Protein backbone atom coordinates (compact mmCIF):
# COMPACT_ATOMS: atom_id res chain seq x y z
CA UNK A 1 0.00 0.00 0.00
CA UNK A 2 2.64 2.41 1.09
CA UNK A 3 4.70 1.72 -1.98
CA UNK A 4 1.81 2.27 -4.33
CA UNK A 5 0.81 5.55 -2.82
CA UNK A 6 4.37 6.73 -3.09
CA UNK A 7 4.37 5.88 -6.76
CA UNK A 8 1.11 7.66 -7.21
CA UNK A 9 2.51 10.77 -5.63
CA UNK A 10 5.59 10.54 -7.78
CA UNK A 11 3.51 10.21 -10.90
CA UNK A 12 1.38 13.12 -9.81
CA UNK A 13 4.38 15.35 -9.33
CA UNK A 14 5.87 14.23 -12.61
CA UNK A 15 2.68 14.94 -14.51
CA UNK A 16 2.48 18.41 -13.03
CA UNK A 17 6.08 18.94 -14.05
CA UNK A 18 5.35 17.82 -17.57
CA UNK A 19 2.26 19.94 -17.77
CA UNK A 20 4.19 23.03 -16.82
CA UNK A 21 6.82 22.17 -19.40
CA UNK A 22 4.25 22.09 -22.15
CA UNK A 23 2.77 25.32 -20.86
CA UNK A 24 6.12 27.03 -21.19
CA UNK A 25 6.18 26.02 -24.82
CA UNK A 26 2.65 26.96 -25.55
CA UNK A 27 3.75 29.22 -28.37
CA UNK A 28 4.92 26.50 -30.77
CA UNK A 29 4.47 28.87 -33.70
CA UNK A 30 7.31 31.05 -32.38
CA UNK A 31 9.88 28.62 -33.76
CA UNK A 32 9.68 28.74 -37.54
CA UNK A 33 13.21 27.70 -38.41
CA UNK A 34 14.06 31.09 -39.88
CA UNK A 35 13.34 33.76 -37.29
CA UNK A 36 15.54 34.69 -34.37
CA UNK A 37 13.85 34.52 -30.99
CA UNK A 38 15.17 36.62 -28.11
CA UNK A 39 13.95 35.75 -24.64
CA UNK A 40 14.04 37.96 -21.57
CA UNK A 41 16.54 40.52 -22.80
CA UNK A 42 16.93 42.70 -19.71
CA UNK A 43 16.49 46.45 -20.08
CA UNK A 44 17.40 49.01 -17.42
CA UNK A 45 16.42 47.14 -14.26
CA UNK A 46 17.72 49.83 -11.93
CA UNK A 47 15.25 52.54 -12.84
CA UNK A 48 11.72 53.08 -11.69
CA UNK A 49 8.87 55.45 -12.33
CA UNK A 50 8.06 55.65 -8.65
CA UNK A 51 9.73 56.36 -5.34
CA UNK A 52 10.24 53.55 -2.90
CA UNK A 53 10.51 50.55 -5.21
CA UNK A 54 12.95 48.01 -3.76
CA UNK A 55 16.36 48.06 -5.40
CA UNK A 56 15.37 50.69 -7.92
CA UNK A 57 15.95 54.41 -8.23
CA UNK A 58 13.42 56.87 -9.52
CA UNK A 59 15.15 58.21 -12.57
CA UNK A 60 14.82 58.08 -16.36
CA UNK A 61 15.50 54.69 -17.92
CA UNK A 62 18.83 54.28 -19.68
CA UNK A 63 18.48 53.39 -23.34
CA UNK A 64 20.17 50.42 -24.93
CA UNK A 65 20.71 49.27 -28.49
CA UNK A 66 20.35 45.90 -30.13
CA UNK A 67 22.17 44.56 -33.18
CA UNK A 68 20.23 41.90 -35.02
CA UNK A 69 23.08 40.12 -36.84
CA UNK A 70 24.74 38.76 -33.70
CA UNK A 71 22.09 39.51 -31.05
CA UNK A 72 24.40 41.98 -29.36
CA UNK A 73 23.05 44.28 -26.68
CA UNK A 74 24.90 47.60 -26.65
CA UNK A 75 24.71 49.77 -23.54
CA UNK A 76 27.30 52.35 -24.53
CA UNK A 77 24.79 54.47 -26.39
CA UNK A 78 26.97 57.58 -26.39
CA UNK A 79 29.71 55.92 -28.41
CA UNK A 80 27.54 54.01 -30.85
CA UNK A 81 24.51 56.24 -31.46
CA UNK A 82 25.50 57.46 -34.89
CA UNK A 83 27.05 54.24 -36.13
CA UNK A 84 25.62 51.30 -38.04
CA UNK A 85 26.40 49.01 -35.09
CA UNK A 86 22.79 48.78 -33.99
CA UNK A 87 19.38 48.25 -35.55
CA UNK A 88 16.90 48.77 -32.73
CA UNK A 89 17.06 51.19 -29.80
CA UNK A 90 15.05 50.41 -26.68
CA UNK A 91 14.33 53.84 -25.26
CA UNK A 92 12.28 55.80 -22.78
CA UNK A 93 10.02 54.47 -20.09
CA UNK A 94 10.75 50.84 -19.31
CA UNK A 95 12.85 50.88 -22.49
CA UNK A 96 9.53 50.28 -24.18
CA UNK A 97 9.78 52.69 -27.09
CA UNK A 98 11.60 50.84 -29.83
CA UNK A 99 13.26 53.08 -32.40
CA UNK A 100 15.02 52.30 -35.63
CA UNK A 101 18.47 53.56 -36.62
CA UNK A 102 17.92 56.46 -39.00
CA UNK A 103 20.42 59.14 -39.86
CA UNK A 104 17.66 61.23 -41.41
CA UNK A 105 15.09 61.10 -38.61
CA UNK A 106 15.43 63.59 -35.74
CA UNK A 107 13.50 61.18 -33.51
CA UNK A 108 16.13 58.47 -33.95
CA UNK A 109 19.23 58.26 -31.74
CA UNK A 110 21.03 57.63 -35.03
CA UNK A 111 20.08 61.06 -36.37
CA UNK A 112 23.04 62.52 -38.20
CA UNK A 113 24.55 59.08 -38.87
CA UNK A 114 24.25 56.70 -41.79
CA UNK A 115 21.40 54.48 -40.58
CA UNK A 116 18.61 53.73 -43.04
CA UNK A 117 15.98 52.61 -40.53
CA UNK A 118 12.23 52.95 -41.09
CA UNK A 119 9.38 51.13 -39.35
CA UNK A 120 5.66 50.67 -39.87
CA UNK A 121 2.89 48.47 -38.52
CA UNK A 122 0.95 45.80 -40.40
CA UNK A 123 -2.25 44.44 -38.89
CA UNK A 124 -1.42 40.80 -39.52
CA UNK A 125 0.09 38.00 -37.47
CA UNK A 126 3.85 37.61 -37.85
CA UNK A 127 3.82 34.52 -40.05
CA UNK A 128 1.30 36.08 -42.44
CA UNK A 129 3.57 39.00 -43.22
CA UNK A 130 5.35 37.49 -46.20
CA UNK A 131 6.25 40.58 -48.20
CA UNK A 132 7.45 43.96 -46.99
CA UNK A 133 5.81 47.11 -48.35
CA UNK A 134 7.79 49.03 -50.92
CA UNK A 135 10.45 51.45 -49.82
CA UNK A 136 8.17 54.33 -50.83
CA UNK A 137 5.40 52.98 -48.58
CA UNK A 138 7.86 52.48 -45.77
CA UNK A 139 8.89 56.10 -46.09
CA UNK A 140 5.40 57.53 -46.24
CA UNK A 141 4.05 55.45 -43.33
CA UNK A 142 7.17 55.59 -41.19
CA UNK A 143 6.37 55.64 -37.46
CA UNK A 144 10.00 56.28 -36.35
CA UNK A 145 9.34 54.19 -33.25
CA UNK A 146 6.82 51.83 -31.74
CA UNK A 147 5.77 51.80 -28.11
CA UNK A 148 2.52 52.66 -26.40
CA UNK A 149 -0.32 52.27 -28.80
CA UNK A 150 -1.93 55.59 -29.71
CA UNK A 151 0.86 57.62 -28.17
CA UNK A 152 2.16 60.29 -28.58
CA UNK A 153 -0.64 60.87 -31.11
CA UNK A 154 -3.81 58.86 -31.61
CA UNK A 155 -2.73 57.59 -35.01
CA UNK A 156 0.47 55.97 -33.74
CA UNK A 157 0.61 52.18 -33.82
CA UNK A 158 2.37 50.71 -30.83
CA UNK A 159 3.24 47.23 -29.70
CA UNK A 160 1.32 47.37 -26.43
CA UNK A 161 -1.77 48.69 -24.72
CA UNK A 162 -2.16 49.53 -21.10
CA UNK A 163 -4.93 48.00 -19.10
CA UNK A 164 -6.29 50.83 -16.99
CA UNK A 165 -7.72 48.67 -14.26
CA UNK A 166 -4.52 46.77 -13.60
CA UNK A 167 -1.82 49.07 -15.00
CA UNK A 168 -0.37 46.21 -16.95
CA UNK A 169 1.22 46.40 -20.37
CA UNK A 170 -0.56 44.10 -22.80
CA UNK A 171 1.04 43.39 -26.18
CA UNK A 172 -1.08 44.10 -29.24
CA UNK A 173 -1.96 40.76 -30.84
CA UNK A 174 -1.87 40.27 -34.56
CA UNK A 175 0.28 43.31 -35.25
CA UNK A 176 3.67 42.95 -36.90
CA UNK A 177 6.26 45.62 -37.56
CA UNK A 178 8.14 45.75 -40.81
CA UNK A 179 11.32 47.74 -40.60
CA UNK A 180 14.61 48.49 -42.26
CA UNK A 181 17.82 47.60 -40.47
CA UNK A 182 20.58 50.15 -40.05
CA UNK A 183 22.00 48.96 -43.36
CA UNK A 184 18.63 49.15 -45.09
CA UNK A 185 17.63 45.48 -45.22
CA UNK A 186 13.97 44.60 -44.92
CA UNK A 187 12.99 42.83 -41.71
CA UNK A 188 9.99 42.05 -39.56
CA UNK A 189 9.52 42.18 -35.83
CA UNK A 190 7.05 40.86 -33.29
CA UNK A 191 7.36 42.11 -29.72
CA UNK A 192 5.89 39.50 -27.43
CA UNK A 193 6.43 40.73 -23.91
CA UNK A 194 8.09 43.15 -21.54
CA UNK A 195 7.65 40.88 -18.50
CA UNK A 196 10.15 38.28 -17.35
CA UNK A 197 9.39 34.77 -18.55
CA UNK A 198 7.02 35.91 -21.31
CA UNK A 199 3.93 35.07 -19.25
CA UNK A 200 0.70 34.78 -21.22
CA UNK A 201 -1.03 37.07 -18.75
CA UNK A 202 0.33 39.25 -15.97
CA UNK A 203 -1.78 40.27 -13.02
CA UNK A 204 0.93 41.67 -10.77
CA UNK A 205 1.95 45.26 -11.36
CA UNK A 206 5.35 44.43 -9.87
CA UNK A 207 6.13 41.50 -12.14
CA UNK A 208 9.82 41.86 -13.06
CA UNK A 209 10.27 44.20 -16.01
CA UNK A 210 11.60 45.25 -18.44
CA UNK A 211 12.65 41.88 -19.90
CA UNK A 212 12.00 41.80 -23.62
CA UNK A 213 10.87 38.75 -25.53
CA UNK A 214 10.66 39.30 -29.26
CA UNK A 215 11.38 37.66 -32.57
CA UNK A 216 12.58 38.97 -35.88
CA UNK A 217 13.61 37.98 -39.34
CA UNK A 218 15.99 39.88 -41.60
CA UNK A 219 15.93 39.29 -45.35
CA UNK A 220 19.63 39.28 -46.10
CA UNK A 221 19.37 39.35 -49.90
CA UNK A 222 17.96 42.88 -49.96
CA UNK A 223 14.57 41.80 -51.32
CA UNK A 224 11.23 42.40 -49.63
CA UNK A 225 10.54 38.69 -49.16
CA UNK A 226 9.75 38.13 -45.47
CA UNK A 227 8.36 34.61 -45.68
CA UNK A 228 9.26 32.62 -42.60
CA UNK A 229 7.05 29.57 -42.98
Amino acid at each position, binding site marked *: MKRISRNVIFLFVLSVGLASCTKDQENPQLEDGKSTIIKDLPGDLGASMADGVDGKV*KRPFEDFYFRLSDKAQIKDTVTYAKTLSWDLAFTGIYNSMIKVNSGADPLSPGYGGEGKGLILAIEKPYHEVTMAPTLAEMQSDNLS*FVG*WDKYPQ*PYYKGWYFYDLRTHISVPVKGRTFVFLTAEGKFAKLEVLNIYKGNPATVTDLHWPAPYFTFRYYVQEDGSRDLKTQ
Partner: protein
Amino acid sequence: MKTQKIIPFLLLFVGSFLIQSCSKDDPGRPEEELPDLPPATVTKSGEYTVTELPGDLTVSMGGQDGTGDGGFKPVYYSLEDGRVVPEAYVKSDHWDIAFTGIYNSSIWANNGAAEYNPAKGGIGSGGAYLVVDPVIDAKYYDAVKHQPKQVPIDKSLLDEAYSNVQSVPVADPQLMTNGYLSLDYFLGSSNGYAFYDFYGAMFPGNKERGHIVYNLPRPIIIKTAKGNYAKLIIYSFYKGSPRSPTLADKAPYISFKYTILKDGSKDFTKITDN
Protein backbone atom coordinates in the same frame (compact mmCIF):
# COMPACT_ATOMS: atom_id res chain seq x y z
CA MET B 1 -0.78 65.65 -9.04
CA LYS B 2 0.12 63.19 -6.36
CA THR B 3 3.52 61.69 -5.86
CA GLN B 4 2.78 58.34 -4.32
CA LYS B 5 1.25 56.51 -7.21
CA ILE B 6 3.39 57.47 -10.11
CA ILE B 7 2.84 54.38 -12.17
CA PRO B 8 -0.92 54.55 -12.13
CA PHE B 9 -0.69 58.23 -12.87
CA LEU B 10 1.47 57.56 -15.84
CA LEU B 11 -0.70 54.83 -17.16
CA LEU B 12 -3.80 56.87 -16.62
CA PHE B 13 -2.14 59.58 -18.60
CA VAL B 14 -2.02 57.39 -21.65
CA GLY B 15 -5.25 55.66 -20.84
CA SER B 16 -7.13 58.89 -20.79
CA PHE B 17 -6.35 59.32 -24.44
CA LEU B 18 -7.64 55.87 -25.22
CA ILE B 19 -10.84 56.46 -23.34
CA GLN B 20 -11.24 59.77 -24.93
CA SER B 21 -10.79 58.45 -28.42
CA CYS B 22 -13.53 55.92 -27.68
CA SER B 23 -15.95 58.57 -26.58
CA LYS B 24 -15.27 60.47 -29.78
CA ASP B 25 -17.35 57.96 -31.62
CA ASP B 26 -20.52 59.19 -29.93
CA PRO B 27 -22.82 60.50 -32.59
CA GLY B 28 -23.48 64.22 -32.49
CA ARG B 29 -26.76 65.34 -31.06
CA PRO B 30 -29.44 66.64 -33.35
CA GLU B 31 -29.42 70.38 -33.81
CA GLU B 32 -32.61 71.07 -31.84
CA GLU B 33 -31.18 69.64 -28.62
CA LEU B 34 -28.21 72.02 -28.51
CA PRO B 35 -28.02 73.98 -25.27
CA ASP B 36 -27.77 77.76 -25.27
CA LEU B 37 -24.30 79.20 -25.67
CA PRO B 38 -23.02 81.61 -23.03
CA PRO B 39 -22.88 85.24 -24.19
CA ALA B 40 -19.96 86.13 -26.45
CA THR B 41 -17.29 88.31 -24.84
CA VAL B 42 -15.31 88.88 -28.04
CA THR B 43 -16.80 90.46 -31.13
CA LYS B 44 -13.82 91.88 -32.98
CA SER B 45 -10.17 91.35 -33.73
CA GLY B 46 -7.81 92.13 -30.89
CA GLU B 47 -5.84 90.82 -27.97
CA TYR B 48 -7.66 89.09 -25.14
CA THR B 49 -6.72 87.42 -21.90
CA VAL B 50 -8.33 84.34 -20.40
CA THR B 51 -7.66 83.84 -16.72
CA GLU B 52 -8.02 80.50 -14.97
CA LEU B 53 -10.24 78.76 -17.44
CA PRO B 54 -11.19 75.70 -15.39
CA GLY B 55 -10.46 72.30 -16.86
CA ASP B 56 -12.24 69.25 -15.57
CA LEU B 57 -11.87 69.76 -11.82
CA THR B 58 -14.04 66.80 -10.91
CA VAL B 59 -11.58 64.06 -11.75
CA SER B 60 -9.18 62.80 -9.13
CA MET B 61 -5.83 61.66 -10.48
CA GLY B 62 -4.79 59.75 -7.39
CA GLY B 63 -6.05 56.50 -8.78
CA GLN B 64 -5.18 54.69 -5.55
CA ASP B 65 -8.23 52.50 -5.80
CA GLY B 66 -7.19 51.46 -9.27
CA THR B 67 -10.54 52.36 -10.74
CA GLY B 68 -9.92 55.91 -11.83
CA ASP B 69 -9.94 56.17 -15.58
CA GLY B 70 -8.36 59.60 -15.88
CA GLY B 71 -11.17 60.60 -18.19
CA PHE B 72 -10.86 64.35 -17.98
CA LYS B 73 -13.73 66.00 -19.80
CA PRO B 74 -12.56 68.15 -22.71
CA VAL B 75 -12.94 71.91 -22.53
CA TYR B 76 -13.95 73.58 -25.79
CA TYR B 77 -13.29 77.26 -26.16
CA SER B 78 -14.14 79.78 -28.85
CA LEU B 79 -11.35 82.24 -29.50
CA GLU B 80 -13.58 84.05 -31.98
CA ASP B 81 -16.34 84.62 -29.44
CA GLY B 82 -14.46 84.41 -26.14
CA ARG B 83 -16.53 81.76 -24.42
CA VAL B 84 -16.61 78.16 -23.30
CA VAL B 85 -18.68 76.00 -25.61
CA PRO B 86 -20.63 72.95 -24.43
CA GLU B 87 -19.64 69.49 -25.64
CA ALA B 88 -22.82 69.25 -27.67
CA TYR B 89 -21.27 71.68 -30.12
CA VAL B 90 -18.23 69.49 -30.78
CA LYS B 91 -18.98 69.11 -34.48
CA SER B 92 -19.96 72.73 -34.98
CA ASP B 93 -17.69 75.63 -35.88
CA HIS B 94 -18.45 77.36 -32.58
CA TRP B 95 -15.21 76.32 -30.88
CA ASP B 96 -11.58 76.83 -31.91
CA ILE B 97 -9.41 75.20 -29.28
CA ALA B 98 -9.99 72.15 -27.13
CA PHE B 99 -8.11 71.08 -24.02
CA THR B 100 -8.40 67.33 -23.62
CA GLY B 101 -6.80 64.39 -21.84
CA ILE B 102 -5.11 64.34 -18.50
CA TYR B 103 -5.28 67.69 -16.77
CA ASN B 104 -6.71 68.97 -20.04
CA SER B 105 -3.17 69.25 -21.35
CA SER B 106 -3.68 68.05 -24.94
CA ILE B 107 -4.46 70.95 -27.25
CA TRP B 108 -6.52 70.48 -30.39
CA ALA B 109 -7.82 72.75 -33.09
CA ASN B 110 -11.28 72.13 -34.56
CA ASN B 111 -11.05 70.16 -37.79
CA GLY B 112 -13.94 67.98 -38.88
CA ALA B 113 -12.01 66.37 -41.72
CA ALA B 114 -9.33 64.85 -39.51
CA GLU B 115 -9.93 61.27 -38.51
CA TYR B 116 -8.76 61.53 -34.90
CA ASN B 117 -9.91 65.09 -34.21
CA PRO B 118 -12.56 65.60 -31.51
CA ALA B 119 -14.61 67.33 -34.24
CA LYS B 120 -14.36 64.40 -36.67
CA GLY B 121 -17.28 64.57 -39.07
CA GLY B 122 -17.95 68.19 -38.21
CA ILE B 123 -17.59 71.37 -40.21
CA GLY B 124 -14.59 73.04 -38.55
CA SER B 125 -11.58 73.72 -40.76
CA GLY B 126 -9.02 74.68 -38.15
CA GLY B 127 -5.47 73.63 -37.35
CA ALA B 128 -2.76 74.14 -34.76
CA TYR B 129 0.95 74.86 -34.83
CA LEU B 130 3.60 75.23 -32.16
CA VAL B 131 6.08 78.04 -32.71
CA VAL B 132 9.56 77.11 -31.51
CA ASP B 133 11.83 80.12 -31.91
CA PRO B 134 15.48 79.05 -31.71
CA VAL B 135 16.55 82.46 -30.46
CA ILE B 136 14.08 82.32 -27.57
CA ASP B 137 14.80 78.64 -26.91
CA ALA B 138 18.52 79.41 -26.56
CA LYS B 139 17.68 81.64 -23.60
CA TYR B 140 16.07 79.03 -21.38
CA TYR B 141 16.08 75.56 -22.92
CA ASP B 142 18.60 72.73 -22.73
CA ALA B 143 18.14 71.04 -26.09
CA VAL B 144 20.21 68.00 -25.07
CA LYS B 145 18.31 67.19 -21.88
CA HIS B 146 15.04 68.51 -23.27
CA GLN B 147 14.29 70.55 -20.18
CA PRO B 148 14.56 74.17 -19.07
CA LYS B 149 18.03 75.26 -17.96
CA GLN B 150 16.40 76.58 -14.82
CA VAL B 151 12.98 77.45 -13.47
CA PRO B 152 11.00 79.56 -13.03
CA ILE B 153 10.99 80.86 -16.57
CA ASP B 154 10.32 84.59 -16.58
CA LYS B 155 6.85 85.53 -17.72
CA SER B 156 8.51 88.28 -19.75
CA LEU B 157 10.15 85.61 -21.89
CA LEU B 158 6.76 84.08 -22.66
CA ASP B 159 5.50 87.52 -23.63
CA GLU B 160 8.58 88.16 -25.74
CA ALA B 161 8.08 84.91 -27.66
CA TYR B 162 4.44 85.80 -28.18
CA SER B 163 5.25 89.30 -29.40
CA ASN B 164 7.84 87.92 -31.80
CA VAL B 165 5.15 86.06 -33.69
CA GLN B 166 4.20 88.76 -36.16
CA SER B 167 2.47 86.57 -38.70
CA VAL B 168 1.38 82.99 -39.23
CA PRO B 169 4.75 81.35 -39.92
CA VAL B 170 3.54 78.31 -41.88
CA ALA B 171 1.16 77.44 -44.69
CA ASP B 172 -2.11 75.71 -43.87
CA PRO B 173 -0.98 72.19 -44.84
CA GLN B 174 1.63 72.38 -42.08
CA LEU B 175 -0.97 72.98 -39.40
CA MET B 176 -1.71 70.03 -37.16
CA THR B 177 -5.24 68.68 -37.48
CA ASN B 178 -5.04 64.97 -36.74
CA GLY B 179 -3.08 65.30 -33.55
CA TYR B 180 -2.67 67.60 -30.58
CA LEU B 181 -0.03 69.85 -29.12
CA SER B 182 1.41 68.16 -26.08
CA LEU B 183 3.87 68.28 -23.25
CA ASP B 184 7.49 68.58 -24.32
CA TYR B 185 9.42 65.38 -24.97
CA PHE B 186 7.28 63.25 -22.78
CA LEU B 187 6.48 59.62 -23.51
CA GLY B 188 7.54 59.80 -27.09
CA SER B 189 6.33 63.27 -27.97
CA SER B 190 8.66 65.88 -29.43
CA ASN B 191 8.51 69.68 -29.06
CA GLY B 192 5.75 70.70 -26.69
CA TYR B 193 4.31 73.86 -25.24
CA ALA B 194 5.07 72.92 -21.63
CA PHE B 195 7.69 70.96 -19.72
CA TYR B 196 6.40 68.26 -17.41
CA ASP B 197 9.02 67.64 -14.73
CA PHE B 198 8.15 64.01 -14.26
CA TYR B 199 11.35 63.05 -12.47
CA GLY B 200 11.66 66.23 -10.43
CA ALA B 201 14.81 67.23 -12.31
CA MET B 202 14.37 70.93 -11.53
CA PHE B 203 14.39 70.40 -7.76
CA PRO B 204 16.19 67.12 -7.04
CA GLY B 205 15.07 65.53 -3.81
CA ASN B 206 12.11 67.83 -3.28
CA LYS B 207 8.96 65.82 -3.79
CA GLU B 208 6.74 68.86 -3.62
CA ARG B 209 8.47 70.06 -6.77
CA GLY B 210 8.23 66.91 -8.87
CA HIS B 211 5.43 66.37 -11.38
CA ILE B 212 5.12 70.05 -12.10
CA VAL B 213 4.13 71.50 -15.44
CA TYR B 214 6.04 74.60 -16.57
CA ASN B 215 4.63 76.46 -19.52
CA LEU B 216 7.31 77.35 -22.03
CA PRO B 217 7.83 80.48 -24.16
CA ARG B 218 6.44 78.67 -27.20
CA PRO B 219 3.42 80.37 -28.72
CA ILE B 220 0.65 78.48 -30.47
CA ILE B 221 -0.98 79.33 -33.78
CA ILE B 222 -4.62 78.35 -34.03
CA LYS B 223 -6.53 78.45 -37.26
CA THR B 224 -10.08 78.80 -36.05
CA ALA B 225 -12.97 76.58 -37.03
CA LYS B 226 -14.20 79.29 -39.37
CA GLY B 227 -10.77 79.71 -40.97
CA ASN B 228 -9.39 82.79 -39.20
CA TYR B 229 -6.07 82.95 -37.40
CA ALA B 230 -5.05 83.47 -33.81
CA LYS B 231 -1.82 83.37 -31.83
CA LEU B 232 -1.77 82.33 -28.24
CA ILE B 233 0.57 81.92 -25.30
CA ILE B 234 -0.34 79.75 -22.35
CA TYR B 235 1.02 81.05 -19.06
CA SER B 236 -0.05 78.43 -16.62
CA PHE B 237 -2.17 75.38 -15.84
CA TYR B 238 -2.42 76.27 -12.16
CA LYS B 239 -4.76 78.42 -10.12
CA GLY B 240 -3.11 81.77 -9.55
CA SER B 241 -0.60 81.21 -12.36
CA PRO B 242 2.42 80.70 -10.07
CA ARG B 243 5.70 80.88 -11.99
CA SER B 244 7.15 78.10 -9.86
CA PRO B 245 4.24 75.89 -8.84
CA THR B 246 4.29 73.16 -6.24
CA LEU B 247 2.09 70.12 -5.82
CA ALA B 248 -0.09 72.19 -3.51
CA ASP B 249 -1.20 74.37 -6.41
CA LYS B 250 -4.53 73.46 -7.93
CA ALA B 251 -4.87 72.34 -11.54
CA PRO B 252 -6.08 72.50 -14.22
CA TYR B 253 -6.83 76.22 -14.44
CA ILE B 254 -5.65 77.43 -17.82
CA SER B 255 -4.50 81.02 -18.20
CA PHE B 256 -3.55 82.38 -21.58
CA LYS B 257 -3.39 85.44 -23.81
CA TYR B 258 -4.31 85.51 -27.46
CA THR B 259 -4.71 87.70 -30.50
CA ILE B 260 -7.53 86.89 -32.86
CA LEU B 261 -7.77 88.23 -36.41
CA LYS B 262 -11.38 87.86 -37.42
CA ASP B 263 -10.89 88.93 -41.03
CA GLY B 264 -8.72 86.07 -42.33
CA SER B 265 -5.52 88.11 -42.08
CA LYS B 266 -2.29 86.45 -40.97
CA ASP B 267 -0.60 89.69 -39.92
CA PHE B 268 -0.64 90.08 -36.15
CA THR B 269 0.94 93.52 -36.33
CA LYS B 270 -2.17 95.05 -37.89
CA ILE B 271 -5.37 94.76 -35.93
CA THR B 272 -8.25 96.06 -37.97
CA ASP B 273 -11.56 97.00 -36.46
CA ASN B 274 -13.41 93.87 -37.51
